[in-house]
């Protein structure tokens, strides 16, 4: 039976990655009743994603992320947090009502406070051939490797920027796969400059150096300061072409390098989703260092909408450990705001978390710089390149719409249908906004898509769930 069942709590947390899990635990320890929702079957988020039931990493092969993930899941299980997995949130309204599709149909949750911890998605600046089957996101490759135990292809090129590059390439090599090349937008100098920041997480730095050594030992060619300029193949990826780029990722001439490969894993950084804060019309500002549009927040994650907190990479891209700490702060703040933690205790507990977060800021800054948006790459996109995958809208069509007077991203959507497809602009939004910004002057003027439900497409059958007509309450008709 699947009629909406209302659940009430002091706090609803959406997203059970390191940020949301920490928020839920901190608030529940302080005495709040907490519901934690995630569309995944178990907590962990992107970085600590658990393989689904039936699959598992063999005992001898487990890495630090597997252990951290198990610790996170054990923490939630041992707490009084009400965990609801396989719950895809599609609507958030009022202050606050959260609707989620669960295996038993739609369920509604009500709470006066809400933590949004829904994570980031990947940026990819389009190039000819990027829509061909066989081209996948770099973050997508981590999902295949971590939770499915699969290597993306028989021969892969791994390309883009940031720490995931080495991670994905090394994991493929360790699993016995072939990496044709690593194509890195950054140069050795960029990595050297990032070192002091990355060294704030010595464990991760060591891990990164280990990956680099593995790639060296496997003699994988690493092309620094190169970008992918084309993917060729009739029906799928067969060949990946790379070219030298300047410091901003713009092709700068020079010899092309081609690699036979049936898979390309490529990503140009992460974009904070900020979906729930946009939906609830919180104030946002554009911050390239945080990955893009980010909700305006105080030090505890409080947004401009009362009772709303935003944490983790979904608010500002900073990495797993800063995400955890920002979540913990918001959980404490929610409990304090609800009158459950007296000011003095709140300030004492928060101070040590804030100190930890401050120590991480150099790390987050270094990661952010490696993965920053590069407007020059957007400027260099060839006119016939598809920008919007859902609606096959090309750059030249977008330029036509701009010439005809589209001045902000929502006008552009109406002129071109770019952003109207089923992905709701998540794949093309950054590029479309970047193109428009080249003409109107800034990303601030361009704005962002107006958030609307559903947050994610949901099949109508799932909303209704399975029900018996006999269970539907029918009021007795009034006597005639």
């Amino acid at each position, binding site marked *: 039976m699947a009629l909406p069942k209302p659940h009430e709590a002091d706090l609803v947390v959406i997203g059970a990655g390191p940020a949301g899990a920490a928020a839920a635990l901190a608030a529940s320890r302080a005495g709040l009743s907490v519901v934690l929702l995630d569309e995944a079957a178990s907590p962990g988020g992107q970085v600590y994603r658990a393989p689904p039931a039936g699959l598992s990493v063999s005992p001898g*092969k487990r890495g630090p992320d597997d252990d951290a993930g198990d610790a996170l899941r054990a923490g939630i299980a041992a707490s009084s947090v009400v965990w609801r997995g396989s719950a895809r949130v599609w609507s958030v309204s009022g202050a606050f009502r959260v609707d989620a599709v669960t295996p038993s149909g739609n369920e509604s949750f009500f709470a006066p406070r809400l933590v949004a911890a829904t994570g980031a998605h990947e940026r990819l600046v389009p190039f000819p051939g990027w829509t061909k*089957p066989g081209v996948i996101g770099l973050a997508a490759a981590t999902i295949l490797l971590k939770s499915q*135990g699969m290597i993306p292809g028989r021969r892969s090129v791994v390309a883009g920027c940031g720490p995931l590059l080495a991670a994905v390439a090394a994991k493929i090599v360790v699993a016995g796969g072939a990496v044709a090349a690593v194509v890195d937008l950054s140069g050795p100098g960029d990595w050297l400059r990032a070192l002091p920041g990355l060294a704030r997480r010595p464990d991760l730095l060591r891990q990164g150096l280990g990956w680099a050594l593995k790639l060296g030992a496997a003699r994988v060619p690493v092309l620094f300061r190169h970008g992918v300029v084309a993917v060729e193949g009739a029906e799928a990826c067969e060949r990946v072409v790379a070219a030298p780029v300047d410091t901003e990722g713009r092709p700068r001439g020079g010899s092309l390098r081609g690699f036979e490969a049936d898979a390309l894993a490529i990503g140009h950084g992460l974009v904070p989703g900020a979906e729930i804060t946009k939906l609830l019309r919180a104030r946002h500002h554009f911050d390239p260092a945080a990955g893009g549009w980010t909700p305006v927040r105080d030090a505890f994650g409080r947004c401009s909408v009362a009772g709303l907190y935003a944490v983790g990479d979904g608010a500002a891209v900073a990495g797993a450990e800063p995400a955890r700490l920002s979540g913990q702060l918001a959980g404490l703040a929610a409990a304090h705001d609800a009158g459950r933690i007296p000011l003095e205790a709140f300030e004492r507990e928060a101070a040590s978390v804030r100190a930890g977060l401050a120590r991480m800021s150099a790390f987050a800054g270094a990661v952010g710089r490696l993965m920053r948006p590069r407007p020059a790459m957007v400027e260099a996109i060839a006119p016939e390149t598809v920008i919007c995958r859902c609606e096959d809208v090309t750059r030249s069509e977008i330029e036509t719409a701009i010439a005809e007077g589209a001045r902000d991203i929502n006008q552009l959507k109406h002129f071109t249908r770019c952003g109207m497809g089923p992905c709701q602009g998540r794949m093309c939004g950054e590029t479309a906004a970047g193109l428009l910004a080249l003409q109107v002057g800034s990303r601030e003027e361009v704005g962002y898509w107006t958030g609307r439900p559903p947050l994610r497409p949901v099949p109508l059958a799932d909303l209704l769930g399975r029900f018996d007509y006999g269970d539907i309450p029918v009021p007795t008709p009034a006597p005639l």
Partner: protein
Amino acid sequence: MTALRFAGGFERGATVTFHVDGAAVRAHSGETLAAALLAAGVVALRRSPRDGAPRGAYCFMGVCQECVVRVDGALRQSCQVAVVDGLSVELRGAV
């Protein structure tokens, strides 16, 4: 593109059989449909609406919608569906 299952270091669930346009495909319980299709070498899942260009799974996290196929008659994101015995997948028409 054919995804390769790790040769070792990863435990898999029982073998399951599902059908793609009538042809039997074997996979392991716990795998997502998108991953199982890739491992079977099925990389093009659909055609884009305007250009009719081939498309395949891209984000594996439920965002891009490129992996949508017909599963037991209903349109589903294959990266969000777990394979089970007897599942029937239709690409015909979509590809």
